């Protein structure tokens, strides 16, 4: 098995922990889930637990690593919460969710709400989910940078969640896996207190997923306010000896590569333009008379100056003849 898993879940400064995490591995495939429940009177805790259990049950019935399978798991979780909402005390319960499905080559991740998944490749964040929240939408539209979400005043306004009326509307992404890839699934209580750069720094130090979580939790504890939110994080290390090793800026265009890829893009554009002008110049060298004729014809058609010049030319020709 190529996966090492660890998780941490803590009530923070709150009376109850409404977060829940779970995972399941079947053969070469695995399923990892983190959910953050909301809705008072125990509703939040029930919702997150229902959601995680429903996803894992659905995964056991269909352990394929495909976007369709993940979509079915999320729909099952949504249905489970809607069913339980018939109980009056639980009518307001909702849950965010983030799910990772993976086998030896592929990862599929999906989420609803503001719980996140980070995919670290070659030591840097290669992919992160976009929160279904007001600042998440702003960041997706380019109005604010992604790392400004954690300081945004509307970060708690979640736009989608399991248990809302209608469709569950998940965001699903397929990723290819490389040796040494890391995944972090976490609730907002976690990512609000640990920056992406800190996640990267701690990933460089951690020999195992449990160490990584402890290092990041230490940062969170030092920063946490007394009434800090519940936080839950689940770390997955992909360690298959057969998988290719991820190279810095490989298939994903890591951060460092930005400068180079820009230079590369410009170079390709220059190459395209230069090839064209080279072809034109070569044609002019090989067929100079035809080229001249073409130029003259173009000049004849050009709106300004041509008439005057032609008169000029004829005027000059006369004395010679």
């Amino acid at each position, binding site marked *: 098995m190529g996966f090492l898993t660890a998780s*941490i879940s*803590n009530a923070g*400064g709150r009376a109850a922990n409404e977060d829940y995490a779970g995972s399941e591995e079947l053969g070469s495939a695995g399923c990892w889930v983190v959910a953050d429940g909301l809705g008072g009177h125990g509703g939040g805790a029930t919702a997150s637990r229902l959601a995680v259990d429903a996803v894992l049950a659905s995964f056991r019935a269909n352990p394929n690593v495909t976007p369709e399978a993940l979509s079915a798991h999320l729909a099952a979780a949504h249905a489970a919460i809607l069913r339980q909402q018939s109980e009056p005390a639980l009518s307001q319960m909702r849950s965010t969710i983030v799910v990772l499905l993976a086998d030896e080559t592929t990862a599929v991740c999906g989420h609803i709400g503001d719980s996140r998944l980070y995919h670290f490749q070659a*030591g840097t964040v290669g992919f992160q989910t976009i929160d279904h929240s007001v600042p998440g939408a702003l960041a997706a539209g380019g109005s604010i940078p992604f790392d400004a979400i954690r300081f945004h005043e509307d970060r708690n306004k979640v736009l989608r969640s399991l248990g809302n009326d209608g469709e569950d509307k998940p965001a699903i992404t397929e990723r290819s896996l490389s040796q*040494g890839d890391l995944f972090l699934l976490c609730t907002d209580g976690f990512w609000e207190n640990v*920056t992406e*750069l800190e996640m*990267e*720094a701690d990933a*460089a*130090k*951690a020999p195992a997923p449990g160490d990584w*979580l*402890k*290092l990041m*939790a*230490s940062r969170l*504890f030092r920063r*946490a306010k*007394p009434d800090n939110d519940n936080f839950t994080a689940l770390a997955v290390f992909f360690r298959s000896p057969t998988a290719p090793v991820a*190279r*810095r*800026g*490989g298939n994903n265009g*890591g*951060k*460092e590569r930005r*400068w*180079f*890829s820009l*230079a*590369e893009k410009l*170079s*390709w554009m*220059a*190459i395209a333009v*230069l090839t064209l*002008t*080279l072809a*034109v*110049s*070569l044609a*002019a*060298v090989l067929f*100079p008379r035809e*080229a*001249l*004729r073409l*130029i*003259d014809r173009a*000049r004849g058609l050009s709106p*300004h*100056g041509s008439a*005057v*010049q032609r008169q*000029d*030319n004829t005027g*000059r020709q006369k*004395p*010679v003849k």
Partner: protein
Amino acid sequence: MKYQPGNAQHIGARKEQQDAFAFSDPADKKFVAHGGFLALVSDGMGGLSNGREASAAAARTFLSAYEGKTPEETIPAALARSLQAAFEVVQGLNRAAGNGQSGATLVAAVAHDGHLYWVSVGDSRLYLIRQGRLVQLTRDHCYRERLFDQVAGDRLPLAEALTNPEREHLTSYLGMVGSPEIDGNTRPFFLEPEDQVVLCTDGVYRAVSETEFAAAFAGGSPSAECEALKATILARATEQQDNLTMAAFRCSGAAGGGAVGNLRSKLTVGGAGLLLCANLFVADLAWNSLRRLRRGPEVRRATEWKHVGADDTTAPPVRQKETGDDSTARRDSPKKDPSQAPADEQEPVADPAADANPDEAVPVATAETTRKPGHKKAGKKGTAKKKGTSQDPTEDKR
């Protein structure tokens, strides 16, 4: 990637400076090629000069051990070996003194080819400043962190960890009994251009907020930035102000990571450059061959000028008019078609009849010939000048 070092140090309100720092030689290119650039800071502990000796010996030993690195040894291995050497030296000092009186923290960072590696024991810290954001890379070896691990495992309330009276006690340092816990990265950490790496003792980070720290390193040379932070600390220093020491360096130039991707980029850029050269060469060929075809009319005009200039002085109005027309046409035309291919520049002088007799090429520079009449008559000077200047751009192009 290049590394620009800087440092600052102050005794604070203490009687003795027990901090030490060191850099490897950034000018030793042979060593930098495999060993990168090393910076380290050590904070000594213990009375009666023991602390001072411990940190100085640790820094000296670590540096010389690291400078003994061979190209075959990996950087993490060399760092571990150097740390072991420093640990043994401080242990030796303690043995010589008879009782475990002294100790030292040590944090060392190596930047090599866009990667950062570090080792640390104790509570001195390594920070990274990227785009104004301060990130602590090391984890302090103090009791608080052990308590945090218990909090993470839900075995202890956070409040207890934060208020435990022993929370600042060191759990790992050079000179301790037993084997020290080492903080360091097992995987490379990638540096970006303009990243700043700062190593400092607790006298620095306990005296300022993270915001103040980051603000001091917002710009300027690393030594100026270190001095700025030192000034911030000293401006409000209390009677308890500890020794403060910082060693920093800034990375510049492209990151060296991802050799394959970089090579491809370099090849692409190089290819574009080569293509540009080929273009210039062929365009020059085209320009020359087209010009050769167009020589005819120019030569005729030149002889005409000579003839007229030498012949009769009673006909200037006619000639002037003629030259005036001619020169305006020539002067204006390059301005009209700058967007066209270079081969088009001769166009205004072009004569459709030139096609018929391309072999009339005579190597007479038109500019020179046209200037001649200008010297004779002041009235013509203007026109002659114009002609001269109008000729220049084409000369330059060649």
